[in-house]
């Protein structure tokens, strides 16, 4: 194994796993007491497994022990060890989060890694800024995202017309002309002369100029890709596919003798790592300033297998063609498909009926359908004509009435499997909330005796109780003026811990950390920012907050996201453990595992990524659940 790749041995753990491991080792005295109590009450047959649980905890905390001793030995061992109380664990956890949050890569860092890995060493722009490297790649390998289209004029002569996917070529030529004082015919020959100042025009550019067809459209998508700014309206997805083409990325079609090449795979690199709800992007200036322009919560769905345009991009991505040919082929086919399908339908050929079927059907058909006689490789290796026929017969390629505003990548963006799974979590959550309120819950509780409207109203009323957000720290309070002291206390605590551990401390870093917590709380709890209250203390305590958690009110399959599903499960998990005391004494490690097992059942059904210690959003939500179920005891 090549040493340059590095490994995750016990000594050489990567930053991704570091936080998860540190969390696992944070066990409170109460965690140990529970294990000892369980050991004390164990029968002879139960003793080995109860001992194993205790040993696991001792190992996590680095406490040396001997096997085969009596209970008194283990009790002594635990009581002699310096163990943290739960509130100390909470402080420690907050500190650990603070100390490690910067280790989590931002989308920009993910993009840098992808570009570093995929760029050719022959291209001389390796030391340029990230956005400049991407721009030069688009110019050299994507012909500035333009291509020549053949057309036949009235005389029957074949002519060529230049098609521009993103405007920018004219501006780049002008920029070079001014810089070199010479005429520029071919941009590719002047790449070395393009500097990062080429992007300066974006600062003053109007919205229209930054549109794809505007003069700075190319610069804008490059800048967005480099800085991890996800645009609303499907714009990001299109640029990701074009990026994948110019960087020669691969797609695992599952054919015989093919593997997932993790370093070039589009799904793993762009859709799993980069284009997800990565909280770290909320620390970027762009997201802090203009939040409405950007996508707040990418669905996490990855490739939409029932969208014809995405299938066309995948088809061309896997062909043995040059990047320019792939871009041309994909763009031409995407543009032509609605007309082709309409014509075929008019000629009475078989075609898909609108509205059916769902993503799962296509995903199965495309990725795992060897038993059905159709394999993704069979589809991807079809000649163009055959692939067009396949799309006509299986995909909806045009817009329905009233869909004019949608781009081709927004077609069929409903995630029905995900929405069903999400709804199922909410259906399980409400009886738990009812129980917590001391109300009787009939078996199979589903509001079946009520009208649709009443059901909705009842459900909304119960869900409105789930708005407490993050449990381990009152994030909203940090913004209230009269809670300034509380904020100062956090700064002081973190400073003390940093000094103790000889870690660098900076107030700015704490500010960023709090911003991150705010970003998460926005998904998990009250959507509205809290203001200083004018009520008396008594009024504050008695009046229930009416603010709602947005993630619990997803009303359509188009809007469901991985985050909303995890947040819904978070409230279910907490409500369930309010009723069931058995889980209350679990260590963080055990809570992480149990939460993962539970939520992954839904995430997998929705084809979302499973819960991961690599994702700071996931880690923070599970820690909040851990804090919630432990707090119930005090």
């Amino acid at each position, binding site marked *: 194994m090549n040493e340059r*790749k*590095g490994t*995750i041995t016990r000594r050489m753990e*990567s930053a991704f796993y570091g936080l998860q491991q540190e969390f696992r080792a944070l066990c409170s005295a109460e965690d140990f007491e529970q294990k000892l109590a369980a050991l004390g009450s164990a029968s002879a047959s139960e003793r080995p497994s109860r001992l194993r649980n205790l040993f696991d905890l001792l190992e996590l905390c680095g406490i040396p022990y001997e096997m085969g001793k009596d209970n008194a030995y283990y009790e002594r061992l635990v009581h002699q060890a310096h163990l943290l109380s739960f509130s100390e664990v909470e402080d420690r956890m907050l500190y650990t989060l603070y100390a490690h949050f910067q280790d989590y890569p931002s989308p920009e860092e993910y993009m840098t890694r992808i570009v570093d890995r995929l760029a050719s060493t022959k291209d001389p722009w390796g030391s340029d800024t990230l956005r400049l490297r991407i721009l030069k790649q688009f110019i050299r390998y994507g012909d500035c995202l333009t291509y020549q289209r053949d057309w036949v004029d009235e005389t029957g002569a074949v002519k060529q017309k230049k098609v521009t996917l993103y405007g920018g070529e004219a501006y780049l030529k002008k920029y070079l002309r001014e810089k070199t004082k010479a005429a520029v015919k071919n941009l590719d020959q002047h790449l070395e002369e393009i500097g990062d100042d080429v992007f300066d025009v974006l600062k003053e550019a109007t919205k229209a100029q930054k549109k794809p067809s505007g003069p700075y459209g190319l610069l804008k998508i490059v800048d967005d890709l480099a800085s991890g700014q996800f645009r609303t309206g499907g714009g990001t997805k299109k640029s990701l596919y074009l990026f994948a083409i110019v960087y*020669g990325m691969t797609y695992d079609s599952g054919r015989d003798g*093919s593997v*997932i090449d*993790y370093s070039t795979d589009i799904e793993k690199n762009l859709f799993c790592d980069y284009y997800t709800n990565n909280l770290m992007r909320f620390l970027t200036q762009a997201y802090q300033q203009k939040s409405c322009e950007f996508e707040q919560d990418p669905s996490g769905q990855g490739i939409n297998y029932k969208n014809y345009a995405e299938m066309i991009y995948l088809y061309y991505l896997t062909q043995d063609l040059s990047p320019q040919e792939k871009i041309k082929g994909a763009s031409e086919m995407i543009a032509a498909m609605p007309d082709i399908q309409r014509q075929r339908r008019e000629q009475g050929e078989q075609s898909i009926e609108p509205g059916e079927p769902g993503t799962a059907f296509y995903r199965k058909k495309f990725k795992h359908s060897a038993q059905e006689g159709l394999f993704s490789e069979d589809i991807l290796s079809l000649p163009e004509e055959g692939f067009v026929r396949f799309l006509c017969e299986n995909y909806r390629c045009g817009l329905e009435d009233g869909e004019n505003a949608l781009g081709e990548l927004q077609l069929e963006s409903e995630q029905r499997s995900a929405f069903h799974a999400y709804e199922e979590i909410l259906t399980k959550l409400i009886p738990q909330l009812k129980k917590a309120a001391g109300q009787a819950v009939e078996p199979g509780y589903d509001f079946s005796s009520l009208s649709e409207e009443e059901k909705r109203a009842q459900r909304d009323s119960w869900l409105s109780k789930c708005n407490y957000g993050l449990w381990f720290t009152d994030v909203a309070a940090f913004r209230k003026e009269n809670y300034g002291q509380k904020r100062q206390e956090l700064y002081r605590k973190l400073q003390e811990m940093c000094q103790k551990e000889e870690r660098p401390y900076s107030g700015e870093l704490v500010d960023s950390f709090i911003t991150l917590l705010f970003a998460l709380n926005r998904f998990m709890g009250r959507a509205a920012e809290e203001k200083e209250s004018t009520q008396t203390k008594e009024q504050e305590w008695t009046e229930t907050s009416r603010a709602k958690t947005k993630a619990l009110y997803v009303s359509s399959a188009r809007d469901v996201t991985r985050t909303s599903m995890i947040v819904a499960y978070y409230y279910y998990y907490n409500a369930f453990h309010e009723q069931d005391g058995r889980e209350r004494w679990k260590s963080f490690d055990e809570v992480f595992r149990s939460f993962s097992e539970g939520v992954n059942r839904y995430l997998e059904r929705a084809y979302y990524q499973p819960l991961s210690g690599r994702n700071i959003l996931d880690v923070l939500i599970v820690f909040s659940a851990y804090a919630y179920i432990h707090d119930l005891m005090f």
Partner: protein
Amino acid sequence: MVIQLSRAGTHHQEQGEENQDAVCSGSAKGICVISLADGVSACGEARCGAEIASRAITDLLLKKSGYFLTFDQDKIARFALDHILWELSRRAKEEQKAVEDYSSTVTSVLVDRKSRKMLCFNLGDSMVLAVGNGVCRVAAMPSDSREGCCVTTTKHAASLASVRLLDSGGVESVILCSDGAWRQMFDKNRLKPEVASLLTHHEYQRLKEFLTGQDCFDDYSFIALDLRQRKGRRTA
């Protein structure tokens, strides 16, 4: 029949260092096991670690094949890795070194001809290919090594290992390849047509020639188990 190749890549050759991959095989009572381990170059005793790991898993699978073909996958991974780690720790203790110095990936395949079952165990970025009916399939994918590869001394390695129990009916040969080898055999994510042809025709000698003819930076190894029945009548 077992065919194997294990060579140092240009990096180690230039440094005057030995090949840090190890391959190993064994058979008993209709059970065949082939194993491959790829030592971590950054670790001082990588070669020794790879040898221990490949030998340990081969012996374990041969000795406990009956259990392994019935255990659930989690148990197999835990059992196998505990055993390897125990062997590595024993050597580390003897040599007064850290067990992490003996880190390697480990891949192993057990084939039971009688029950026609095949067990694939894979920890790390090596690969298992299975050839049958003129088709070459990936039986065990290499793991994601973008953020570092999981090895025998990785914490919670058992949860990162892949264990698959397959039907060996129709499988004519099984090939384990280290990442140094399969990266030469693949063009990005696709098996090179010339290599696919060699594999489907079971031309392992020519596969050796192909690999040794490449300018391979990393150490490269493969071990192939040819399961085809020899033709011809037995005579007294």
